[in-house]
């Protein structure tokens, strides 16, 4: 390579090697379990398409058009009846993954948030790091 100062580059390379370090992989077993879960999820064989693509595309467009028309005509009539629930979070389901834990959920007192209350989690002594 022309016009390239090898000595200068040696210094830069040394900086890169010293400071562009990588942290260790924490929770390595999670990599395995996530990958294998995903492989299993995707492994279910897909059936060949029963309908041609063009037919599907036009059906989709027709469905969208119908939905749009209905939304424009029907929904405004319903709008008044809708409360503000769509703007407030909601817990649909919550479960504890350990037999000593119990989980319950309720709306926060300010009516804006939602709380999941876990009982039975093991106490962590002050000297243990949680960061």
């Amino acid at each position, binding site marked *: 390579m022309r016009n390239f100062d090898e000595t200068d580059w040696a210094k830069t390379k040394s900086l890169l090697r010293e400071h562009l370090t990588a942290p260790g992989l*924490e*929770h390595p*077993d*999670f990599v395995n379990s996530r990958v294998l879960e995903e492989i299993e999820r995707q492994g279910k064989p897909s059936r060949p398409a029963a309908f041609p693509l*063009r037919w599907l*595309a*036009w059906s989709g*467009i027709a469905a*969208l*058009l119908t939905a*749009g028309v209905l*939304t*424009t005509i029907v*929904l405004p009539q319903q709008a008044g009846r809708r409360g503000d629930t*769509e*703007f*407030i*979070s*909601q*817990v*649909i*389901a*919550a*479960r*504890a*993954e*350990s037999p000593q*834990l119990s*989980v319950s*959920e309720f709306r*926060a*007192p*300010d009516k*804006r*948030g*939602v*709380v*999941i*209350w*876990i009982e039975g*989690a*093991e*106490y*962590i*002594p*002050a000297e*243990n*790091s*949680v*960061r």
Partner: protein
Amino acid sequence: MSRCLTAAFLLLVLWAPGAHPAGDRIWSALVLATNEDPSTPIPEPLKKFAPVIEKVFGYNSLYLLGQKKRDLFYGSEQWLVPSKEFFFKVQCLSQGPTSYTLRIELYHDKNLLVTTEARLARDSPLYIRGPAWGKGQLIFLLEVR
């Protein structure tokens, strides 16, 4: 033919009622709540949560141990790691005009503590009561912004 299909599809997407803005993010935080020193100033990111935390959990001193924010969109599945010991896996199952349906898994180290499916609306937080630590309580916060 394919141009007609593309044009028709683009028109419908642009017109589609209830389209929501891109760019939402999910923010998570790990908080230590205690009653040790009520004069401790509340960290800025936690100020809006302090009244609810005091009312629900009974603590008036808050310390922010960690926070993380990531993009949120339909189909996304990612780790939120406000701390190395406690972290979330968040999978976006569906997306509405003002909220997201998420599967949220809370981990402590290698242990899965809680799995929840929740519909999180923008600026409507999820508070999770975690384990006690030292003389305080760990509280997790999740919010779509």
